[in-house]
């Protein structure tokens, strides 16, 4: 349904040209859930917004590649065609529910506007539809709450409203950009559960963008791990969690808090910061932070290679070399 081929995105800023996305390719099938995981600054949000061409123009330039949605290249569409696509075929929810709703309009009016933006119908019908949508996302007493303003809603409730808006015209693909980051932990689980439920009911594909592997662990069929604007590992959720041979993914997993960890074990952080996307890149982009880096890593730029069925990794270490390295490191600690 969605196929991204060799996408490169450049963002012009006052400090220079940011190489935000550097040759990303992946495919999403209808009804699938895909997690895109990476640290902040890995280009995952730019990638997500590229899928709807939402990055602010004209400072964003799509230099190479294609984004094929139902065989149409989104990057080649006119502004009007993109607008028709937005909301109806592809919808998106954003990180911060507190600021993503317009503070001066009633929830109901914003929802009705969202519905009527895509479907011709009377206000009255739209209002009925809005009520149903709010019920679907688990907001009780929707008729009363539609007359309220965003500031009268809690963060979780607002995210529900935003999800309802995104569902307004039954999209085939829902992009959720860090949908739970700004929320309390208990609310996070509720929102993720809600996303699962609506996927069952509406049957759309979902892309979840997150920095937190834990968020996608129970949700995603497939996971893409992004680092400095590239995909460094892709595979099924099981592949990523149990069979990773990519040092970066491995580091991310080690940084996750675990219930089964014993008291002596410390959480491991990844040293240093993600590379600056402004400069020239040489060698493997994770080289400077990689616990297993060799001299060769500074020179070669690893490409994704298949190591299992639909499991691809961008690292020069072979599976056995990787396991040796991990064992070596753990024996030292």
């Amino acid at each position: 349904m969605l196929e991204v081929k060799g996408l490169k995105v450049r963002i012009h800023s006052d400090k220079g040209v940011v190489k935000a996305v550097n040759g990303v390719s992946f495919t999403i099938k209808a009804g699938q859930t895909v997690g895109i995981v990476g640290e902040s600054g890995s280009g995952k949000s730019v990638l997500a917004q590229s899928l709807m061409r939402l990055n602010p123009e004209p400072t964003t330039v799509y230099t190479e590649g294609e984004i094929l949605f139902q065989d149409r290249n989104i990057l080649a569409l006119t502004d009007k065609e993109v607008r028709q696509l937005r909301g109806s075929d592809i919808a998106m929810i954003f990180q911060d529910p507190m600021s993503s709703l317009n503070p001066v309009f009633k929830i109901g009016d914003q929802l009705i506007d969202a519905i009527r933006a895509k479907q011709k119908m009377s206000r009255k019908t739209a209002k009925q539809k809005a009520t149903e949508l709010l019920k679907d996302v688990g907001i009780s007493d929707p008729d009363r709450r539609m007359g309220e303003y965003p500031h009268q809603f809690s963060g979780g409730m607002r995210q529900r409203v935003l999800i309802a808006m995104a569902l307004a015209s039954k999209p085939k693909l829902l992009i959720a950009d860090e949908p739970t980051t700004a929320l309390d932990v208990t609310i996070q689980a509720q929102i993720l559960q809600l996303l699962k439920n609506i996927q069952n009911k509406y049957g759309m594909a979902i892309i979840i963008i997150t920095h937190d592997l834990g968020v996608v662990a129970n949700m995603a069929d497939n996971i893409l791990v992004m680092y400095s604007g590239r995909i460094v590992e892709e595979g099924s959720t099981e592949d990523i969690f149990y069979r990773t041979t990519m040092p970066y993914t491995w580091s991310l997993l080690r940084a996750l808090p675990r219930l089964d960890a014993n008291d002596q074990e410390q959480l491991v952080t990844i040293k240093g910061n993600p590379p600056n996307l402004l400069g020239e890149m040489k060698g493997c982009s994770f080289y400077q932070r990689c616990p297993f880096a060799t001299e060769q890593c500074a020179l070669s730029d690893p490409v994704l290679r298949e190591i299992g069925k639909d499991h691809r990794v961008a690292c020069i270490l072979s599976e056995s070399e990787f396991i040796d390295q991990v064992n070596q490191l753990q024996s030292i600690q």
Partner: protein
Amino acid sequence: MFKKKRNVVSISVLCMITIATLTASFWLPHSPSYIDPDFRLLEPSATYWFGTDDFGRDIFARTVVAAKVSLFVGIVVAVASTLLGTLIGLLSGYYRKADFLMMRVIDGMLAFPSLLLALALVAALGGSIVNIIVALTFAFSPVMARIVRSAVLQINNVQYIDAAKITGTSDIIILFRYILPNIITPIIVQGTFIFAKAILAEAALSFLGVGVDPTIPTWGNMLQEAQIYISIAPWFSIFPGLAIVFTVFLLNILGDGLRDALDPHAKKVKSRKSLLKKLKLAKS
């Protein structure tokens, strides 16, 4: 702050105007006060670039000389109301107890449109350059005080101010070493705008006949004289007016440019613009 070409240009031109008017007696082709009834209301020509006025005086010479008074009033009012307003704003924002009384006085003064307050004061004090400066300073300081106060209030909660207070740093040092440098941007910007407004206000007061002594050439006085000749000698009105617009415009450009150059938030907008320019160049 001098990085921007626009700021450099406006400051240079303003300096040139100042130098030109201060040295006027050395280079002007005609005396600004020489009366010649035979040359009344002459059109602009090679001899009289801006024409002559109802007394046969050279309008160009008078326009140049008039800049002296206008700029003098403008700069003194700008500096005086900046100092006064900043002081009140600092004290009011820092000493919360004094704030209530001071802000009510400021609110009371702000209840008058500034031109009205200036008019009322000039009406009471009588029109002289000193009185006009006093009146305009009173009219413009309240706005400055408000701006400084709200800037102080914002910064007063910042932790390094708390830290300084806890370690027993004296109030004077906190106010002038820690707070003032951090709020200097809005002060400079507002000061520039007051400069511009003061020139306009002085011209308006003189034009209304309650300003500077009508025998002293100022732009406002010249326009007051020119008013009745507007249809037979339009140049008499046009050139002094253009002088006001030009000077005030330069100051406004400067104020705007300084705000962009000094304010990190506005800077983003600016650089976006230069960025767009680069993008366009790259495309073509």
